[in-house]
């Protein structure tokens, strides 16, 4: 079924009786050409692009819970391409281009809203880095504007411009950055993949990866064994466990990132605003809730929930930056499991096991990567060559020291981000 205003009109006039499932709930077959482990945003997008771009449809996405239940359903919905370093720069640039046509491509409105991202800076040194980053972005073909104090004040009059502990010197404005409706991204990819014949198998946990002579042959699942020629792992925070099934140890530690939403409010924040000194970022959803987040809870965890110290720190940062939100009430907080790499940048690469491909290490940046990740991972799996936009997202960069992408400069080792 193709979605459109006309279709809504027709259904509305006929009692909304004609709607059909957005995807099937098939039984798993005994064998597929390709199995994608993980029915989150990246796994679903990978399946979608395998089908759409490469014409491969004998594919299953295996999801242990419900599709879209991982980080794609629990993030702060920010979409941007404002990275500094080679590797990230071209990858997120590629992803943003895919975002820009995604609703039409999927025929599912993902509410991609290019309302602009502003990264504030608070010292001359930070401004210099913003200029460097802005140049990287522009040279990459993306957009960036360095705002001075007055420029930020004009765009974001509600910030504390006069009394802030960390005075605002200016901002790096990325007009094409913005937000999208997170669940819709998962569902849109799911529907698009299903329409092209991909089997989405929910409530199917992979419990083992079968390897013969150094090459994958299939998986064991809670719904029985399934054979496959190729297996792509897209399990985000759980990458450590899924890779371990293939005998691999990854440069990944899983941590908690909390996010927050307030009760609905009339429009008051029109952009995405990032406050680096306070590790705080915020936007307002179309429904009216202020959606915001902060830094990691800073301990390895799979609990998908955080604790008070970081939550309070985020709120304190919010009050420091924009004290007008003091009477907005926090409605809900949640935690995602972040697959943190040593340098804070992702991995899309072959694994040492034949036919097993890795898509992991998304740290806090996975949502905005979704179409780019799926698109380039599909390319890698389908063609056995890295997509040019993701060729630097290599697994061996830590061992060799070549091409590390430590955007924050906090250290290419764990727990320093």
């Amino acid at each position, binding site marked *: 079924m193709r979605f459109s205003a006309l279709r809504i009109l027709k259904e509305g006039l006929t009692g909304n009786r004609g709607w059909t499932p957005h995807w099937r709930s098939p039984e798993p077959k005994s064998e597929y050409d390709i199995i994608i482990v993980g029915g989150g945003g990246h796994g679903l997008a990978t399946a979608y692009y395998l089908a759409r771009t490469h014409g491969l449809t004998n594919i299953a996405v295996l999801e242990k819970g419900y599709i879209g239940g991982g980080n794609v359903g629990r993030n702060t919905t920010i979409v941007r391409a404002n990275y500094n370093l080679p590797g990230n720069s071209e990858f997120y640039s590629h992803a943003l281009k895919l975002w820009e046509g995604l609703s039409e491509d999927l025929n599912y409105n993902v509410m991609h809203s290019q309302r602009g991202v502003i990264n504030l800076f608070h010292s001359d040194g930070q401004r210099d880095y913003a200029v460097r980053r802005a140049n990287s972005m522009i040279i990459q073909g993306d957009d960036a504007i360095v705002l001075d104090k007055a420029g930020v004040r004009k765009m974001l009059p509600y910030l504390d411009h006069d009394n802030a502990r960390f005075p605002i010197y200016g901002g790096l404005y990325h007009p094409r950055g913005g937000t999208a409706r997170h669940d819709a991204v998962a569902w849109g990819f799911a529907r698009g993949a299903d329409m092209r014949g991909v089997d989405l198998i929910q409530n199917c946990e992979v419990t083992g990866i079968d390897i013969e002579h150094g090459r994958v042959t299939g998986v064991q699942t809670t719904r029985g064994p399934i054979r496959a020629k190729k297996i792509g792992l897209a399990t985000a925070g759980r990458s*450590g466990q899924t890779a371990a099934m293939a005998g691999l*140890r990854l440069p990944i530690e*899983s941590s908690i990132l909390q996010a927050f939403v307030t009760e609905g409010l009339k429009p008051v924040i029109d952009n995405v605003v990032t406050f680096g000194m306070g590790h705080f970022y915020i936007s307002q959803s179309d429904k009216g809730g202020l959606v915001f987040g902060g830094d990691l809870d800073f301990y*390895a965890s*799979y*609990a998908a929930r955080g604790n008070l*110290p970081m939550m309070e720190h985020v709120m304190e940062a919010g009050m420091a930056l924009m004290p007008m939100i003091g009477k907005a009430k926090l409605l809900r907080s949640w935690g995602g499991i972040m697959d943190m790499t040593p340098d804070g940048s992702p991995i899309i690469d072959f694994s040492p096991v034949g036919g097993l491909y890795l898509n992991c290490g998304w740290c806090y940046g996975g949502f905005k990567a979704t179409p780019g990740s799926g698109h380039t991972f599909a390319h890698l799996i389908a063609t056995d060559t890295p997509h040019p936009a993701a060729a630097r997202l290599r697994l061996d960069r*830590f061992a060799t020291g070549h091409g590390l992408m430590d955007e924050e400069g906090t250290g290419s080792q*764990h*727990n320093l981000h």
Partner: protein
Amino acid sequence: MRIPCPICGPRDSREFTYRGAALDRPAPDAGADAWEDYVHLRDNPAGPTLDLWYHHAGCASWLKVSRNTVTHEITGAVLAGAEDKA
């Protein structure tokens, strides 16, 4: 979250900073693989783990904390390195 500092007693986790899995530093000549293991690769267990915390706002001790990454249960904490100190 409260962490049982062996020196100060149970304290709010806001007094601590975290530094990941407690691993033994290899010898300088242990080879590239051993160093890659130490600096970058992680078991990343979903379950019991032993990790390093620094009680920066308290006694300034580095601790090895036995903790469960799924439940956040903490079963113990010892002074890191104390086992080597006579």
